């Protein structure tokens, strides 16, 4: 009987030589005359175990990791094709506590299915949400999304149902669904993992969005730094067949590649880029929901937002709403990154504390030194000191401490970090990536770098001026790039003031 082995084709696994491991496994099997099929699945999100090789057995999938090419002959000797014991064996994948303690909803199929196989997708519950949506009126689909409490997972956390209702109510013969897959925040990779590991789910979510608001065309704008995600989406689109409907009712989707501009993750800059222009932010209003892509009503949502929708339709809004805390409903795929021992993707309902995520899942720092600062929510997110680690992970709780969850990226730093240097980097990154439309961001970021250089040089009298500059950027910038860059800067200054003193 043929044996099925899973070797992730996820970019993180590829970066850790998964291709070579897959080739070594196929080669060794051929030498030993073992009939074996290698499936290139997505990642289970246990990046600390990548490349994580799984073997399908009657006891379920058995995990081995992290596997290097040199381990392969020994794995065969140990009978791993039948789930045999080995130093790298982690037992049944589903039983690994790090994974077992999660509640995978948006990422439910990632790492499990073959991302190139529509049949596998359908066999694992894919398509059920779209089938349900086809039986509903647009208003009922929107109502289900509203009822679920789903908020935008890109970072702004705007209620998805309200956005969709606005697009539905906007009269037009041509509306659009745009998926924002310009996941530029350092510390985030959930969009990438979803696109690489379960691309059909995103296509299904977009088709449901199309039915909800009356749109027949969709675009997925993927950053150019994600070539493997682009390839996975293109392959899924080619294999999607009837999933997206047929004839005049067909929902058509096009993948568009970004070109290395962070600010294109801002929705109006993204629309400009899609239209073929420089990624410069637009003034709002009008909202994209009213006048978006090519001037038409457009529902623009993040990958995880759209990928959450099939599950919400299939399982019911109530099941999703039942998870979470306060006004943050459902789950968020958190991404544990930076100096962390067990890094990867942790999808859990809102409400866990940051400390639980950092220590119970993350296992503390990778270096073994104490964690000193954690940046939550990407380059525009606050740096939190240890004293704030007990904050529950929900949108409102983070807002009350002047922070945000953003897209769920969590970057840990140990006690060797120089927070004045991190503050300087925040300004520097803004200077590099500013689109240049508004002065506080374009000029302010460069002045910010200079001020922090002076402060680090010993001139602490400049701290007041830095604070004023930050206030100007917050109040005067056209979009989040300029108005939120002060958040990491000011949080570093507030919580790690000693690092700014000689």
């Amino acid at each position, binding site marked *: 009987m043929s044996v099925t082995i899973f070797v992730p084709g996820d970019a993180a696994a590829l970066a850790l030589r998964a291709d070579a491991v897959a080739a070594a496994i196929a080669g060794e099997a051929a030498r030993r005359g073992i009939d074996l099929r290698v499936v290139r699945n997505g990642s289970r999100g246990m990046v600390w175990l990548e490349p994580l090789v799984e073997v399908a057995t009657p006891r379920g999938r058995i995990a081995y990791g992290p596997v290097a090419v040199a381990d392969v002959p020994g794995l065969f000797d140990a009978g791993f094709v039948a789930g045999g014991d080995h130093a790298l064996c982690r037992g049944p994948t589903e039983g690994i506590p790090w994974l077992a303690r999660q509640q995978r909803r948006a990422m439910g199929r990632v790492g499990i299915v073959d991302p190139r196989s529509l049949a596998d997708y359908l066999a694992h519950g894919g398509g059920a949400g779209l089938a349900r949506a086809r039986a509903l009126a647009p208003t009922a689909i929107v109502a289900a999304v509203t009822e679920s409490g789903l908020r935008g997972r890109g970072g702004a956390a705007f209620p998805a149902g309200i956005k969709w209702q606005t697009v539905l109510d906007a009269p037009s013969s041509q509306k659009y669904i745009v998926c924002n897959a310009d996941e530029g925040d350092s510390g985030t990779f959930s969009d990438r993992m979803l696109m690489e590991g379960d691309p059909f789910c995103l296509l299904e979510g977009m088709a449901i969005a199309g039915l909800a608001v009356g749109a027949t065309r969709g675009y997925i704008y993927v950053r150019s730094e994600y070539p493997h995600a682009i390839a996975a989406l293109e392959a899924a689109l080619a294999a999607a067949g009837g999933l997206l409907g047929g004839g005049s009712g067909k929902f058509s989707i096009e993948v568009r590649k970004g070109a290395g501009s962070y600010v294109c993750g801002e929705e109006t800059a993204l629309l400009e880029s899609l239209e073929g222009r420089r990624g410069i932010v637009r003034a709002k209003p009008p909202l994209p929901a009213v006048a978006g892509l090519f001037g038409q009503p457009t529902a623009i949502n993040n990958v995880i937002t759209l990928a959450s929708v099939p599950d919400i339709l299939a399982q019911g809004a109530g099941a999703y709403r039942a998870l979470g805390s306060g006004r943050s409903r459902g789950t968020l795929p958190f991404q544990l990154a*930076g100096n962390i021992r067990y890094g990867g993707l942790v999808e859990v309902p809102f409400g866990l504390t940051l400390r639980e995520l950092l220590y119970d899942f993350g296992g503390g720092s990778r270096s073994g030194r104490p964690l000193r600062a954690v940046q939550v929510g990407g380059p525009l997110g606050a740096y939190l000191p240890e004293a704030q680690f007990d904050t529950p992970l929900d949108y409102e709780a983070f807002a009350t401490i002047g922070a945000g969850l953003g897209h769920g990226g969590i970057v840990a730093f140990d006690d060797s970090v120089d927070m004045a240097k991190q503050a300087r980097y925040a300004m520097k990154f803004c200077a590099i990536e500013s689109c240049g439309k508004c002065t506080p961001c374009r000029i302010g970021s460069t002045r910010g770098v200079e001020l922090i250089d002076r402060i680090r040089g010993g001139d602490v009298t400049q701290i007041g001026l830095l604070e004023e500059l930050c206030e100007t950027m917050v109040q005067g910038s056209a979009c989040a790039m300029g108005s939120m860059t002060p958040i990491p800067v000011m949080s570093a200054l507030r919580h790690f003031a000693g690092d700014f003193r000689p």
Partner: protein
Amino acid sequence: MDSQAVVARILVAHRERPGALLPVLHEIQDALGFIPPDTVPGIASALNLSRAEVHGVISYYHHFRDAPPARRVLRVCCAEACQAVGGEALAEQARARLAGSDVALEPVYCLGLCACGPALQVDETELHARMTAGKLDALIDELDAGR
């Protein structure tokens, strides 16, 4: 095929596409390695844009090049998650080793490999994670040997 002919073929394939400029520029760069400045007037004319608009887009986006690339390109991630695990020291090491080399060193701000940094990319699709000084040296030896 000369570059003008390549560009002409790409323009024919894409000119009816809404918002065609970025896909056109990507395809030209994929085919030629860069976007030759002398193809800008043809692109502008085919897409009913001004030359300034086309030039503005090429120069705005970090990804687009208007000159031939180096033989190999090494992009070291310089964003926060990689900074937290020694990315800057790695970039510094690469800078020192690649001085005078025909391998270009460029910064990149996040490859989505944030749980297994420091990370880097070679050319367009080759990724490396959990890099160490030793692994970087070996990689640069390999890139140099390919000359």
